[in-house]
């Protein structure tokens, strides 16, 4: 960004520099992704001599084999179940708590909120061994809930803060009027707060979903049966099995990140807003 003086001449060297710089970064980002996509269309032999160009012969077989195997769909199904459980529970539990913190005045409210925000201070990994023991003692080892419940617990702090900030913006007069009219808190929550809060619920849901969908450590520790594996675990197993057969591994990677990329393209607004939400206040 050492662009020279402002000049609006058609051949501004600064513009040229900028274009070149953006181009280089774009290549830096794109090359690995394209190589992965295209690599899945090559044979192993071709991959070795031509890892980055277009395939000379398109091997649809690699992708077809994976798409027609039960394995791929099972992994996606497991990921979907775990993520859906996590998102649903997080939204329910966090919005109830956030509502209470936003609208109900009670002794210790701020203390309890501070307590919850402790969860932002450290990653789940720090206590993963005791967490494992806990989940084992609860008999949840090797179940979807054994992964989902800790994930919900760790996403609570962030979710409650985001939701509470939004809920507080709902005019207080509205609640007051509703209460006077005999509407209960719970009804107000159900019929006013939640419908008004769709954007923030979508945002929180998206962050939670992406985090859960991509999670590796918790499923790795909590799940043993490959029939329950979400895709990050499954793809590591797949890679272990086909250690050097990169063409298959690349095809598998492409197919497993595809849902994320599609979701990203469909819901970029929520994702960008969600993932940078904690950062930009107001």
């Amino acid at each position, binding site marked *: 960004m050492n662009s020279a003086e402002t000049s609006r001449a058609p051949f501004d060297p600064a513009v040229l520099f900028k274009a070149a710089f953006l181009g280089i970064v774009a290549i830096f980002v794109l090359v690995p992704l394209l190589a992965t996509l295209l690599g899945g269309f090559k044979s*192993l032999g071709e991959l070795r001599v031509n890892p980055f160009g277009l395939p000379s012969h398109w091997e649809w077989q690699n992708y077809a084999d994976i798409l027609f195997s039960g394995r791929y769909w099972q992994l996606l199904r497991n990921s979907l179940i775990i993520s859906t459980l996590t998102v649903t529970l997080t939204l329910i539990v966090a919005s109830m708590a956030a509502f209470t913190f936003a609208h109900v005045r009670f002794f210790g409210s701020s203390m309890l909120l501070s307590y919850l925000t402790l969860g932002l201070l450290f990653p789940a990994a720090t206590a993963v061994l005791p967490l*494992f023991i806990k989940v*084992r003692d609860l*008999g949840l*080892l*090797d179940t979807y809930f054994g992964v989902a419940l800790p994930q919900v617990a760790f996403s609570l702090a962030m979710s409650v803060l985001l939701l509470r900030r939004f809920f507080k913006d709902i005019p207080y007069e509205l609640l007051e009027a509703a209460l006077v009219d005999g509407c209960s808190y719970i009804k107000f929550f159900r019929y006013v707060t939640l419908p008004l809060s769709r954007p923030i619920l979508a945002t929180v849901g998206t962050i939670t979903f992406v985090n859960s969908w991509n999670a590796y450590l918790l499923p790795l*520790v*909590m799940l*043993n*049966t*490959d029939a329950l594996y979400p895709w990050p675990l499954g793809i*590591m*197993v797949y890679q*272990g*099995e086909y*250690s*050097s057969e990169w063409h298959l591994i690349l095809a598998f990677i492409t197919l497993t990140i595809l849902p994320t990329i599609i979701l990203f393209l469909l819901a970029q607004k929520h994702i960008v807003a969600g993932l940078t939400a904690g950062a930009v206040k107001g």
Partner: protein
Amino acid sequence: MRLLGKLGLAVAACLLGANVAAADTVVKWLHIEVNPAQVKVWEEVARSYEASHPGVKVEMQFLENEAYKAKLPTILQSKDRPNIIYSWAGGVLKTQIEAGVLEDITDSVKSGGYGDTIAPAALAAFSQNGHVFGLPISLSQVGFLYNKDLMAKGNVDPSKIKTWDDLLGAVKTLKAAGVTPIVVGGADKWPLHFYWTHLAVRIGGKPAFDAALKGENGGFAGETFQKSGELFKQLVDLQPFQNGFLGFKNPQAVGYFGDGKAAMILAISSFYHTQRALAADKVGLSDDKLGWFDFPVVPGGKGEPSDTLGGITGWLVTKDSPKEAVDFLKYFISKDVQARLAAGNFVIPVVKGGEAGLNTAFMKQIAANLAKSNYHQNFYDQSLGPSVGRVVNDVSAEIAGGSMSPQDAAKAIEAAYKQGN
């Protein structure tokens, strides 16, 4: 036993309604075998067992070797754990027994003289204080597999490699001839620990290991173990391994050997067969291109040249498994199946009479080596238990990577052994 099982089922059916009778007893069998040919035989055995035992279903599950070792403790603690799991015996097994996560199958094994059909030493490896917790399936020996063509190309006569210095000499000659002398799966670490531990077996023999266990002679920080690190370092300093060896996982390394890209591999005898499946062309090296020599001796070493390092592998039955699990295991570890596996070159049999199946010179030679060995040292990373064994692997990789001195390596193992965890 079978009758009793059926009777039980019948009673249950009467009590709970007809639906229960239709429900199969499922035996969950977790394996780590990567060779599809062997898995195929196992599946056939499982299917034929199911055919002759209606109401029992044998379900096979797979985990990759390293993933399996890392996950084993958690696997054993889940309520939905598999019934039959793979084991290398040793200290890891001891920990599992003490933790009470295994089924005591003594009665079932001893009944009908079944136990007597199994090689006593192999069965003993899966027993503690007279209680049996698993059944062995195969023995193995660690030694050098070599590629005859590449040895010839490098002008090395493998039959002349008798001592450690001979090996170092061969490495130099091969390198000079532009041949990659040795391939190793350094990322998995344990293939590297074979060097360090087999040197220790050669230098100190059984007495040194036993003394170290008792903490005598400086324990694992003692002279034997420092020296094995030093000799290993002599080899490492020659840069004998393939480019990037610390990034290769074992299956990749074995495949690399099967592709004919390196002259030697310090192998478990079963690699003789797995290199075919792991080679890029799925064919690998044929018998006439493969050779074997025992791990070289160290002049002045206290170990016998006939001492062997290797594995005693088998299957364990986990706690609270249905008795069909044991029954199936006995069916699986039987003379017929063993002979069949031996014929496929998958195992060195442990059931008497199973060796009749051995049909290649290579497998017969390994079986003979093991038969005449008076000291068969189980893999250190298994016999020393889960955490100390891993440290042996760690430091072997560190010596190979040049980031730790042999002295520090020996001290690190002793420290871990004293931490006793």
